[in-house]
């Protein structure tokens, strides 16, 4: 039996549903325009130097992954959409905090063990779906980590936006070159979590599309009730 969502109430509050889908659009446009900006210099090395930690120096990102058309166009989108992303993110975080929803997301003692159990279950080592609250332990880890990684993307973004006015912040991140690197690496981490998330939605819990849109859901369709693994027991 899944706990954390009282019967009859929407699985996700409308604030969560709205900010989730605004985030889908804003994040996609930020990543796409960011990659288009990156393609103007798809490397990290300061001129006349080499960079230790990026194996793909000089290799452009495929244009179908980019947005904005050209450098100036992408910059316009990036510096406009950043406000949507940040304000939307702040609304979500404030709501999660004030409404107590953070209790479903913060790590607790035993989450590590539960994560191992989830991995064992998905790997067919364990037969039955582990008991869970609103989210399973792996989901909790992803949803909890995401805002913190996104915070690093935002802070490093501010550092490369104003490396002279906020020289102290840029120095804190190791200077402009490293701040730009952290901006990129943390973005890749956010995208990796998002891709994993979307994959699991379609492979394990497509009913989440409904609960994240209308809020409607049914306990008997939960992954735990269906004993669902990726592509297994998609239907009841």
């Amino acid at each position: 039996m899944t706990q954390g969502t009282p019967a009859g109430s929407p699985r996700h509050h409308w604030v969560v549903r709205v900010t989730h889908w605004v985030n889908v659009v804003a994040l996609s446009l930020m990543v796409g325009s960011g990659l288009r900006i990156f393609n103007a210099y798809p490397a990290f090395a300061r001129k006349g130097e080499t960079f230790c930690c990026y194996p793909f120096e000089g290799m452009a990102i495929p244009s179908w992954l980019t947005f904005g058309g050209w450098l100036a166009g992408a910059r316009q989108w990036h510096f406009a959409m950043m406000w949507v992303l940040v304000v939307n993110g702040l609304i979500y975080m404030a709501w999660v905090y004030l409404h107590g929803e953070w209790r479903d997301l913060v790590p607790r003692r035993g989450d590590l063990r539960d994560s191992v159990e989830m991995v064992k279950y998905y790997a067919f080592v364990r037969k039955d779906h582990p008991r869970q609250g609103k989210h399973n332990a792996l989901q909790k880890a992803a949803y909890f980590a995401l805002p913190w990684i996104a915070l690093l993307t935002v802070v490093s973004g501010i550092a490369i936006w104003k490396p002279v006015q906020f020289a102290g912040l840029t120095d804190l991140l190791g200077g402009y070159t490293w701040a730009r690197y952290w901006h990129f690496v943390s973005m890749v981490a956010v995208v990796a979590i998002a891709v994993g998330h979307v994959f699991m939605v379609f492979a394990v819990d497509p009913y989440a599309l409904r609960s994240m849109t209308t809020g409607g859901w049914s306990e008997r369709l939960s992954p735990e009730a269906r004993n669902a693994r990726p592509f297994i027991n998609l239907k009841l």
Partner: protein
Amino acid sequence: MNRREMIAAAGATFGSALLTACDSTGPARAAGALTFAQHKNETLERALFSHRSRDRVAPGVGVAGDKFPSYFISDRVPIWDAAMRGAWRLEVGGMVSRPMAFSLDDLMRLERQTQRVNHYCVEGWTAVADFTGVPVSALAAACGVDPASRFVDFESFDDGYHESWDIESAMHPQTIIVYGKDGSPLSAAYGAPARVHSPVKYGYKNTKYLTRVMFLPAANGGYWSDRGYEWYGGL
């Protein structure tokens, strides 16, 4: 249409919309909103700007030397043709009480400043150089700039290239009229006889091959600013 077909159709529509959107400049209707955001951003950036801010190059970081990219818009490296155009002079005019024309020697006799700074290109790369020159603020003082002047236009002989700035950025202590790079006279590849350089503006704002510095009551656009890049271009 059952629910599954509906989800599939919605997914296909969304997916193809995304694919069409890829690497496009986005819907034309967004242009107004983007321009609005850019203006609001500029207001914020100008509020954040401080003359106490300094670009810092970490100790131990050397200059890029000839790895410093060379860039100009003419087909060939622009070189001042003294036989055709007379001796090179840097004119300072507009809203000043003493319009002047400086020879290179004149500039070198003014306050001299050498600084190791980053050059920030809008493309995302940076290059470090030791630049030597005269602060624009010293030039402004020498010519008696009208306090009502709010903008400065830096003009060049590189095929009409110019970029106008807000006066606050031009008066930043690290904004200088450069005539020396890495301990040598500025070479033609990097904007000789003189160029403006400041770490508070992206490279495209830093006009090379200078001919005139005009103090103005209003902004006057610029080569890249008129082609879609932010006019402010500040760091």
